[in-house]
């Protein structure tokens, strides 16, 4: 058994206990900074959350994050080449939920082809194509987090474009 399968077991503790990884723990949640950037009215108000700084990222090495809150695991990733929807000075920074939208298993990143892979039922998603499901059982592509990079290089998440597994409201209610 390859080691990445074990990631699943460990990371599912994350869901049970709500324990956040190091990078996520450092993330600061602040109120939405600029209402002018609000999503369409039908969408939820998302927190603007600092995930890290451009200088912290190494190419093709994902950083664990939590967004919109600590119980929603994701990755922040500098791909190394510009992609549609990529943020930052090189247009290559993306962030995704890492819970498989099929059954909520915690996915692992495969650096060789820049995909997220599910140990539960073997679905996989392309981090260079907006989280498109390359092959799998999920009925949606991977939720991608909208990123804003300020003049200091700080990276903020400010929205999501699909429903995150395990919550009927991306920003938990009540």
């Amino acid at each position, binding site marked *: 058994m390859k080691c990445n399968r074990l990631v699943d077991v460990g990371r599912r503790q994350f869901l049970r206990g709500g324990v956040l990884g190091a990078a996520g723990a450092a993330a600061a949640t602040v109120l939405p900074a600029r209402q002018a950037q609000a999503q369409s009215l039908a969408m939820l108000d998302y927190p603007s959350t600092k995930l890290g700084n451009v200088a912290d990222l190494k190419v093709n090495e994902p950083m664990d994050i939590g967004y919109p809150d600590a119980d929603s695991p994701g990755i922040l990733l500098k791909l190394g080449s510009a992609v549609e929807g990529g943020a930052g000075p090189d247009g290559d920074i993306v962030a995704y939920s890492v819970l498989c939208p099929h059954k909520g298993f915690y996915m692992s990143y*495969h650096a060789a082809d820049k995909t997220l892979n599910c140990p539960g039922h073997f679905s996989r998603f392309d981090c260079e194509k907006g989280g498109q499901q390359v092959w799998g059982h999920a009925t949606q592509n991977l939720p991608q987090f909208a990123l804003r990079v300020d003049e200091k290089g700080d990276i903020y998440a400010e929205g999501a474009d699909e429903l995150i597994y395990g919550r009927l409201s991306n920003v938990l209610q009540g």
Partner: protein
Amino acid sequence: MAYKRNIDRLPIIPAGATEHNVTCHYCIVGCGYKAYTWPLKTQGKVDSNWIGEDLSKQQAAETEAWYAPSMYNVVKQNGQDVHLVIKPDVACEVNSGLGSVRGARMAENRRSDITGTQAQRLTEPMVWRYGTWQPTSWDDALDLVARVTARVIDKGNENDLYVSMFDHGGSAGGYENTWGTGKLYFGAMKVKHCRIHNRPAYNSEVHSTRDMGVDELNYSYSDYQVADTIMLVGTNPMECQTNLFLNHMVKGMQNGAKVIVVDPRRTVTVDSCEQVAGAENVLHLAIASGSDLALFNTLFTYIADQGWVDADFIANSTFQGDVAVPEDAAHPAALGSFEAARVACKMSLADGAATTGLTEAQIIQAAEWIAKPKEDGSRTKTVTGYEKGIIWGNDNYRVIGALVNIGLATGNIGREGGGVCRLGGHQEGYFRPSDAHVGRPAPYIDQLIIAGGGKVHHIWANDHYKTTLNAAEFKRVYNRRTNMVKEAMDARAGATREELVDAIVGEINAGGIFSVNVDIIHSQIGQAAHVILPAVESGEMNLTSMNGERRLRLVEKYMDAPGSAQPDCIIAARLANHLERVLREEGRAEYADQFKGFDWKTEEDAFMDGYNSGNPEVTYDRLRAAGNNGVQEPVKGYENGALVGTKRLYEDGVFTRHGRDDGKALFCMGSWRGLQAPGKSQQQANHRFLINNGRANLNWQNWFLDQKNDFVMDRLPVPFIQIHPDDMAELGLKPGDMVEVFNDVGATQALAYPEPTARKNETFMVFGAPNGAQGNVINAGTNELILPNYKQTWANIRKISDATPAAARVSYKSWEVEL
């Protein structure tokens, strides 16, 4: 950027929402779902909801307390807008809460006036009038159909009426609807010129196993969980029967089962088996395309020579003697005893290896896994699943017979952990009067139409244009013949009904054909139609079907039909009513009397008139109570408030499917004879690429709803053809480039998808796509009983365009998971 719905919250199902039993309307596995409906202006709360969970918190993996946007819609129910959620049922034994990428989009693929989904659904009858299709009333449309049809049929001679009619369950099929059309065409009439939705004749796709006494759906899915060896032949269940694979085969592997996969290509199934069982427990026999029969006969010979057979089973449950059924026009191989089959099928390891391209060691390994008794002498429990790789492949009759031979010889039919079964496409749901008048071999309908046969054509949810063989020629001829009638109708604009009917009949007597299309969407062959009648699917009606382990369930109606669309059984009944009326008006009273007995008001009336007449224990109320676990057919009784079914066929060792009084199974005596169907060898010799073809995970086979599903069409905007990267380089192709696939019978288009595991010069193209019909390059060759051979197709490939703008944006990465 990939398609995103930008839906970031969903209404919460309230406590007290109405709950309906739903069996997925796509594949034969028939996963259980629950449909919840509730009034539009209400919803549950995070602390008060249908499931009693605290939804203010993140839910864990595999939770029952979440549903995806694809599982949600707003639909009409009794005329009112309601919320609809259709989510997998954790209590259903078939899928245990798993949803496939097809079934878990059922709600999204419902027609909705509010959300705008599936606006392509037909809502009103339409007739060809003033040069296009015009909406009209049911009575007007059916009157025209009845009057034209009545002109070409007569008592005892209905050979000018051609009928293409589905025979499946699920979707818009099922026992109600097959009975409706069956009673009309095989009861009131004896229509001989008919065909089924996926093949060009009215015939079994598994004649030989039935002739041998073995029904093709003889096990229970739970047999996969207790088997020692799972043998998969020409089937790709991870993609095509997903939750049979994930919920039963995976459990079998986790319980220690080894897996043999017979397939020329490395499918996702092979990779998934390796992930679960470990590569050392998976044997992929990548045979030369079409050489399955040689493999099975070699395995059978070797297993018998080793004595790894169940002698008691052979003695007690199979025919003793020599030949029971000789080879003739209706039997492409003789049938007889085990010893007779050993002689007829004998094939050495050397010959088997040379023909299949495998090594002798691989064949021996497979034989050991299938049949070598355990150390204590007990039988190895081997369950075998097969599907279109051999059904739509070379020498259908003999190859399926040869596979069943192995199951019989090793005592692996009717036993726990055994079975030799089709994995299937749709669910089943067949209940009709006898089709014996059709004959065997059955008429080859598509070729007869090409040759000018047929004057009136009734089509029930068949789309020859997308899903038949020799499709390019069929379309050319059918367009010409139906256009003749359209032009005649256009020329008589303003005429009375009588004058119009005369004009139509004049044209069909001159070589035209009058086409009536019953479907849920305006299909491609429907573009040729003169009358279009809108039908409904399960959930828009109550519908019964059985799955691949014969599990019978009722899908409860949870929403209104689109517009005035009707169940097929009711459309058939109303057509019968109109035919009776018209025939009586014409003074043909005796013939008109044959069309009595169609006074059904509801689909339940059709169910009681049909299925219940042969299965009096089974009623809607009892099936409702049986829920999503239903009952496995045949139903044996009703005890203690529940229907009593049959987990597994032939547990008593008595084989009945052939109708023989002795109850003995027969072996198939079919020797290997190369590529059997006409034209295949020449096509292979003259073209570079094998164009293997079949289904894919993402879309339902015929794409009918998926062609208007944004999630699907974003991923597969053009049908794909998987090609080895070296072959792509030689052809000057980039990923996504549009290629033309062309050969001696036609041409079609696809986007090039690099597949490093493909063998060179061997491609795989997805079947049935609306914008690249793979059937255009399948030749007309069939077996003796008119079973098409799609799989053995060869063609050349050339680039015709860069990727389309949509195709240029999608991922071309490998489908194999990397963990």
